[in-house]
């Protein structure tokens, strides 16, 4: 096996485990255990477990990364004591939240109160499942993976609204309302910015979009689309300056005011999971994914798991930009968000679509080069 892929790791582990199990079992049971369907099934389970572990681990490291960066932006140092440079601080915090009691307000609706966080968490995890990480490190070459990811991404306001409404708290309800109102401000420009990428790459598949960027990454020619996408993604992730649903200064803690303990940890994890997915989408659509430009020496791109290394490096740098924006800009008001969304971002995204059409028409743009292959 020349390259390590997610498939090879999962199936290799499954066959190794079942082979070891079969070697100590009698004949009939051995045949049942080492059946190819059983191996495949266990492989799929291991596959899902790897994805889950990778997403959770990256989310926790992302929280650490944000805390360290934000500390420097505020002339602090961030977490310092637990683990090397505070790497284990979030595990300690998570353990503390895990030990806490789950408190439900008496008047709250139990069904919505408890299913809201779970659904929010689960939908955020599903998005991670459709994203390709590197060559061979994806859960299937879905032809419409970009569309699927964005569709699942926009589920969140529904579950936020459900959990906010069933909390039976006016601050929670206001936060949920704001989340729903915010959605109509950013969803249209977000999708229009993606349309520009789709026009140039000619595909809805994230893997294809990455491979279409072999001549030039899209952030240069589609700079307007990148700006609109990042701004709309900030609103989608509900991060400062667009964290209206969770405005600590106005609504106590927004839509998760009534949540404590592990349910709050679910919301927190899901928030950062969505931030991770947002950064990954920026890297996939505009920064060439796991590929590197041709002028990079091949030694830097040919070592084992080099694709994952460069991909994660780009992801964390993009998230660093999100943290930079968070440290710089104040929170906007609802009317300002709507005005920015409709008056500024929609015209800009239409301009981006127009520029993408021009790029496809002229095919070659100095200094970027030529569009490699036009699917349309």
């Amino acid at each position, binding site marked *: 096996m020349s390259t390590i892929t997610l498939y090879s790791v999962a199936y290799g582990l499954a066959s190794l485990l079942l082979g070891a199990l079969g070697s100590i079992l009698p004949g009939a049971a051995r045949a049942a255990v080492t059946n190819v369907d059983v191996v495949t099934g266990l492989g799929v389970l291991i596959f899902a477990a790897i994805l889950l572990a990778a997403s959770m681990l990256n989310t926790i490291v992302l929280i650490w990364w944000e805390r360290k960066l934000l500390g420097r932006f505020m*002339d602090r140092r961030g977490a310092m004591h637990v683990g090397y440079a505070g790497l284990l601080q979030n595990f300690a915090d998570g353990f503390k939240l895990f030990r806490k009691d789950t408190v439900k307000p008496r008047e709250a609706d139990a069904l919505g109160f408890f299913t809201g966080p779970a659904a929010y968490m689960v939908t955020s995890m599903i998005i991670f499942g459709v994203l390709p990480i590197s060559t061979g490190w994806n859960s299937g070459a879905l032809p419409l993976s970009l569309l699927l990811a964005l569709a699942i991404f926009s589920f969140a306001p529904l579950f936020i609204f459900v959990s906010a409404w069933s909390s039976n708290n006016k601050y929670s309800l206001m936060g949920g309302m704001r989340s729903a109102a915010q959605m109509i401000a950013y969803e249209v420009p977000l999708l229009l910015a993606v349309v520009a990428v789709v026009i140039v790459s000619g595909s809805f598949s994230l893997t294809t979009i990455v491979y279409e960027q072999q001549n030039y990454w899209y952030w240069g020619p589609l700079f307007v689309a990148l700006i609109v996408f990042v701004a709309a993604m900030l609103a989608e992730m509900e991060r400062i300056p667009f964290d209206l649903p969770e405005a600590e200064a106005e609504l106590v803690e927004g839509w998760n005011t009534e949540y404590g303990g592990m349910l709050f940890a679910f919301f927190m994890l899901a928030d950062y999971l969505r931030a991770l997915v947002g950064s990954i989408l920026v890297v996939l659509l505009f920064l060439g994914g796991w590929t590197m430009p041709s002028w990079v020496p091949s030694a830097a791109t040919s070592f084992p798991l080099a694709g994952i290394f460069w991909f994660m490096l780009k992801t964390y740098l993009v998230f660093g930009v999100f943290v930079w924006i968070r440290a710089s800009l104040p929170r906007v008001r609802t009317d300002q968000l709507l005005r920015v969304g409709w008056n500024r971002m929609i015209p800009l995204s239409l301009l981006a679509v127009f520029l993408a059409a021009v790029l496809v028409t002229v095919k070659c743009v100095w200094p970027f080069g030529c569009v490699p292959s036009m699917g349309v």
Partner: protein
Amino acid sequence: MATPEANEEKPGENSILWVARPMATAARQFTKSLFRPSTIVYPYERLEDPKFRDRLEVASGKPFGVGEVWDNYRGVHALNIATCISCNLCAFSCPDICIDMVTVAGGDPKHPKKCPQIDYGKCSYCGFCSDACPEGCLTMTTRYELSTPKRSEMVYSPEKLYQVFRSKLPMNPIRLARPANEDAILLDPPLCIGCNACARDCPTNCITMLDVPKPEAKPGEKLPRRIWKEPVVNDSDCVRCGTCISVCPKECLFWGTRK
């Protein structure tokens, strides 16, 4: 009054700058903090470490050095039990009433040696006690790490304060230049009964009981029943602790200026 229109975007301003300017500021702050953070990682680094010497100079406007800035920090006390004379002045002067005089080993059974025990839960680190100490045995050091998980551990016994003294921390030098005290213990002779209490309790043994001539009794007059001795105070040895005044049963000793 601010109208809603006042908050609208002004047509002349470039709204790109609203985003660019704060982000440039934050980036500048980030770069500065990356190479020279203001925060000191306290348990691992301390402000008194030599690498932060320049910061101390900037903060105080004075040069860093012994006796200049750092040395007159008022931290935990150091007590030299050997030179303590049990004069009680530290406990008298304490505004927080956090000093108790407790018995330590080394005194004779009739007059036990008493040394200060300090409750740091109450102490305000004003330094009056070390100012008042006539022998210079109770001084303040520069140690400031006194937090303990138990409240009872905040009470420092004389032995514990002596341990601080043994650790030879930099001492607060402010009490070394102590102004001369002009006060003296004066005696109101007719009231004295010569009971020896003042001389007995004087921590510095500077009171001597001297004989006074017994007057001839005139006919019909009754001499007071007393011992015909009177205290004489050696002012150069006296530490002005006032113990003699407080123990005098006839209240015949008082503060005054010797003519």
